[in-house]
């Protein structure tokens, strides 16, 4: 094998994001220092017109302003944006919706305004996202959503695609809203799930806890406001105009069909865990299982004299930044237990 061929394999691996660290550093240095080699790598050259993902002019304007700030005061920019998007006394949400619903697609229209935060999940398992106000969303595979950066005052989420489960932080002043395929779900301190079946022109909203109001902002689809109670699921078919409200069954509540990594909504009826960036909430997990795992993984023994302890269910929440001791303390406090660590054994007793 000639040395040229060898280099080509390395380069090819690197460009496919499959290199080892050593190789990557080597190839990166090599390419950065040689313009001729750099030019040989085809990335942007071979994209066909069908493949191109376009942003609208308005979106590009926003991005351009982050590179070269405009000298025009901000309020004029807003007016310009509004005019450009042909809004007539409309909310930015409504106008945004119109942008997204452009039927004259030649390529894929992806709306990603720089002033909005885009969250997507193209991994194979659920993704947890924490909003700035500590509300959370669990995104299924191929789900995506967007929200403004001033989320603490403007809690409107545009759910672009897929299946997302929301847990809303209570804030009675700032309504939490999810816009999906022309239907707005308004909530205050709740847990609910929105499934945007955009392809079939259907939307499904499941309410686990709290209260939500559903309304239509789609000019082609009129609907009276709907108020859901906990335990109800509403299915809207915009093509047939049929709206049905049923009671939740198990499959509506579980956020994931595969039992992956224990992520489950913390509904009253379902045992499991909810992860966020800062904490772990657990709901009715058997203490015995918890102890067994701690034992085998830390190489410690856990001694619980009273067998009644082992079968109790643990419900509560812990911060991820805590040490093992703090965590044991939390688990014990919640369940009226005490613990003592003596050499390699943890002794747990009823208080």
């Amino acid at each position, binding site marked *: 094998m000639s040395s040229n061929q060898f280099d080509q394999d390395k380069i090819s691996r690197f*460009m496919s*994001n499959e290199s080892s660290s050593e190789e990557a550093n080597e190839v*990166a240095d090599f390419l950065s220092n040689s313009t001729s080699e750099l030019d040989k790598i085809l990335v942007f050259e071979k994209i066909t017109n069908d493949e191109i993902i376009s942003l609208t002019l308005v979106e590009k304007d926003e991005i351009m302003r982050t*590179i*070269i700030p405009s000298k025009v005061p901000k309020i004029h920019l807003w007016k310009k944006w509004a005019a450009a998007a042909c809004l007539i006394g409309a909310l930015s949400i409504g106008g945004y919706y119109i942008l997204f619903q452009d039927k004259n697609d030649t390529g894929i229209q992806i709306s990603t305004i720089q002033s909005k935060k885009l969250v997507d999940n193209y991994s194979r*398992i659920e993704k947890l996202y924490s909003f700035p106000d500590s509300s959370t969303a669990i995104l299924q595979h191929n789900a995506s959503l967007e929200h403004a950066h001033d989320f603490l005052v403007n809690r409107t989420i545009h759910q672009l695609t897929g299946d997302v489960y929301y847990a809303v932080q209570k804030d009675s002043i700032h309504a939490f809203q999810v816009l999906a395929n022309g239907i707005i779900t308004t909530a205050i301190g709740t847990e609910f799930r929105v499934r945007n079946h955009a392809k079939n022109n259907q939307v499904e909203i499941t309410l686990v806890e709290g209260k939500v109001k559903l309304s239509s902002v789609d000019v082609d689809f009129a609907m009276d406001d709907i108020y859901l109670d906990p335990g109800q699921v509403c299915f809207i078919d915009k093509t047939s105009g049929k709206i049905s409200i049923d009671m939740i069954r198990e499959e509506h509540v579980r956020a994931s069909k595969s039992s992956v990594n224990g992520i489950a909504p913390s509904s009253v009826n379902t045992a499991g865990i909810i*992860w966020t960036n800062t904490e772990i909430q657990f709901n009715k997990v058997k203490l015995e299982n918890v102890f067994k795992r701690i034992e085998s993984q830390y190489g410690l023994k856990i001694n619980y004299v009273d067998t009644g302890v082992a079968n109790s269910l643990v419900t509560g929440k812990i911060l991820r930044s805590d040490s093992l001791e703090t965590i044991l303390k939390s688990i014990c406090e919640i369940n009226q237990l005490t613990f003592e660590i003596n050499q390699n054994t943890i002794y747990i007793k009823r208080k």
Partner: protein
Amino acid sequence: MAFLDESLFKNLFYHHYDRIYTGFYKKTNSLEVAQDLTQITFMKLWTYRDQFSQDISHEKQIFRKAKLVLIDWLRKEANQRKLIAEIQQNLPLAFTTSTSDLKEELNLAIDKLPPARKKVFIMAYLEGYSHKEIAEELNISVKTVDAHVLKSLQQLRKLLALTSLLFFIFNK
């Protein structure tokens, strides 16, 4: 002659943005990352506008800038993989989480390192500097760099071990 004024830059931006964005998306599989990288590319183009040449095709120069940004990202990705692999070796558990989840965990954990140690660690593992280069850049001894990196790895293992443990514990 090197010259890129505001109006030419804007022209180039509007004309080439989509292609650059699409190229990044194809290589990274993430709209979010693609958006970031595209923005970085054009920011660099503007910042270093005095290096812009009127003798070489505009498109070529933009593609070159974009490729360099992509190469930086690919380098970081490879280094992150190595880091994750090293940390996973010493964890008491078999991981059931996907790599992208672990990456998020990792980034959160790195964020918790004390500032001086964090800087050294990021230079070593995510930016691909050698310990010698870091020592020179930050004006400290190589031994100090070694110590920082070692302590960082230990701390990260601990942080990740705990979260992975809990993750695993509460998995039914």
